[in-house]
């Protein structure tokens, strides 16, 4: 095993390891337990999955210069429609959660397709299109739910059984990871995606069709957010149908820090494995916040998350100088 391998392993695990050790230490010195029982562990796995999948969905379009605010609204609307359909058809049946899961992906994909076609049709900056799509999807959600929280459709024995088993969630995570790595790292589609991302004009001149690639990206993002919508519904046991005026975009912002962490880890291993590890980091942080919730209010948690993002961005933009400083390279040069 050469030094390059060890460097790659270190680069991959250093951030999650630092998160784990620091947070465990903070809990230990305060006499708290970060993950106290089976239910806490399941919640940890679910939140890590939500963050990982949202981050992948955000990165797919963002890395191609397409800022998509509509992710949250797709998650909510797909889960609303799928829960309504599955509850209407199956009620409290044991299969209703699985059917809701499948439907959520299908509907999410369809919503993503509509979003992608709109972007292509209107030929205006995608950030503008996504703002409009967000408002439309939020409005549809509000109309379907009359602004209410959906409870009966989600609070079924089937959903409780599905979501309370961390193995189900882990399987979802692994399958999503495997499929996404295959699509974007190993398939022709992924090669075209990377070519378009790194040099659109050249890629188009070589014959790569940009429009179908972009639209398929939107479809894949929609499917991923359908999964997120399902997981959120199971985690909260309600779906808030009353979010209007960009109330749904907050979920997108939870993915920014993980995206940068994942990008950093991606230099040493694989970007998508990086997003998984970043999701684990954020879930560790979330579990720690929960333990200290009486001391660290929701607004303080937001500030801490923002500070972590800023600090990490400062590091990324000055990585060379910081590495030189800590390895005393500047001293050896002098």
């Amino acid at each position, binding site marked *: 095993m050469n030094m390059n391998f060890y460097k790659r392993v270190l680069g991959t695990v250093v951030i999650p390891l630092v998160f784990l050790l620091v947070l465990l230490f903070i809990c230990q010195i305060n006499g708290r337990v970060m993950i106290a029982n089976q239910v806490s562990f399941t919640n940890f796995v679910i939140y890590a999955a939500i963050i990982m999948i949202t981050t992948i969905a955000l990165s797919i379009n963002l890395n191609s210069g397409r800022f998509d605010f509509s992710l949250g609204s797709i998650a909510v609307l797909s889960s609303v429609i799928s829960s309504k359909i599955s509850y209407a058809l199956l009620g409290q049946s044991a299969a209703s959660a699985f059917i809701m899961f499948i439907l959520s992906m299908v509907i999410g994909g369809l919503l993503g397709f509509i979003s992608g076609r709109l972007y292509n049709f209107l030929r205006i900056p995608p950030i503008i299109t996504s703002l409009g799509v967000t408002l439309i999807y939020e409005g549809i959600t509000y109309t379907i739910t009359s602004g209410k929280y959906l409870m009966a459709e989600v609070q079924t024995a089937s959903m409780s059984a599905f979501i309370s088993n961390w193995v189900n969630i882990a399987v979802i995570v692994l399958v999503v990871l495997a499929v996404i790595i295959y699509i974007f790292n190993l398939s022709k589609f992924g090669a075209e995606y990377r070519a378009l991302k790194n040099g659109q004009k050249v890629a188009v001149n070589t014959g790569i069709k940009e429009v179908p690639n972009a639209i398929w990206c939107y479809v894949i993002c929609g499917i991923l957010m359908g999964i997120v919508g399902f997981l959120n519904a199971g985690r909260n046991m309600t779906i808030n149908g009353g979010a209007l005026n960009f109330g749904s975009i907050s979920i997108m912002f939870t993915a920014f820090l993980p995206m940068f962490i994942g990008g950093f880890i991606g230099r040493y291993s694989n970007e998508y494995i990086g997003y998984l590890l970043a999701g684990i980091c954020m879930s560790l942080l979330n*579990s720690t916040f929960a333990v200290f919730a009486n001391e660290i209010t929701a607004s303080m*948690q937001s500030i801490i998350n923002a500070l972590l993002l800023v600090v990490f961005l400062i590091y990324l933009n000055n990585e060379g100088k910081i590495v030189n400083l800590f390895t005393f390279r500047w001293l050896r040069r002098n």
Partner: protein
Amino acid sequence: MKAKYANFAKKATALVLVGAVLTGSVFARPKKAKNVKIGVLVSDVSGEEALGFRAYYEKYIASAYNVTFKYTEQLTNAEEEKSAIEKFAAQGCKAIISLSSSDRVTQLQTCSDYKLYYAIASGMLEDDQYEQYKNNPYFVGQIGPSMETEFQAGLEMGRYFAAKGVKSVSIYGAFIPNPMHVYRTAGVLIGLGATYGGTNDKNAVVGQLFGDSRVNVAKISSPKVAIKSYFQGFGETTTDELNAAIQAKPDAFLSVGMATTFFTSQLNAAGIEFSDIDSFTSGNGKAMKDGKLVYLAGKYSSSIGPIFAAVINAVNGNSIRDKGNAISLSQNYLVAKNYADFDKFYTSDSGSSPIFDKSKLDSVIGSNVSYEAFKSLVENN
């Protein structure tokens, strides 16, 4: 010639008669009352209580009276409230009814600036704020649980569980700085026999809760009932916090608001008795009948009827004043401790026959309605 003039006379007479009939019918037709637009500020758009209020106004009141209610989306801060009032003014609203409490004083001042009547439904200003603004001619009044009523609601809830002999509880709520939740929480703690920061004086406890900007569990001393956990809000950590509260295996879970919206299934599944201050809805009925909801303090959906009556009177130039001051009347909570009680409250305030129905409201809408008559209506129902 004679026949020609006779013919002309006949036609002229006929025309005059037709004209007279038409003119008479125009003057005889009653003047169509102008539709009154009323803006409604809301901070909760999804909870069962909020939806009940909205259904009462939009489905019952709007169809019974010539009014149109224009609702805001969820308002989360004072700036949004102000902006909403300005938009309503531009849309021709004559009055604002507020169910949002980020900054009621600014709401009132903004309404005054735009010459809109302002009223508070299901809530109240702080006492000193009311004293300061009660003379404002655009301040119609406030009808809802006073802070003392909110405190009493929490107190009775705490006392109920203490008398039941519970040895441990988890508490949820107190979305500080929402004053009604703070007063409720103070009442719950004192009702359980606890002290906060060494005192069980209402004002001292409330002051500390505001000052701490949270409920500091370390400051709670409760010799008879252990406070296993406390959490507030509904954010990313709530699932874990609820899990921690359930894992602590309390005898009861006391909520000062919204637990029945968010946590019913989890608490039912854990077999933990719980309480809430909410409203009488079908969902809560199911939780009380088949689940573990054992105590519910609630309001009727039509409890916001009288404040509408006061507003429409003001718009029509028939303001009801209490010795020249804005109306200020307290409404108590009703408490259901079993399904029979719940059902009684629930069925007596149904959508098509609410407690404050048109006949009751008509008795206090119009000219020459005295404050005493209005007060009697509110307090006797």
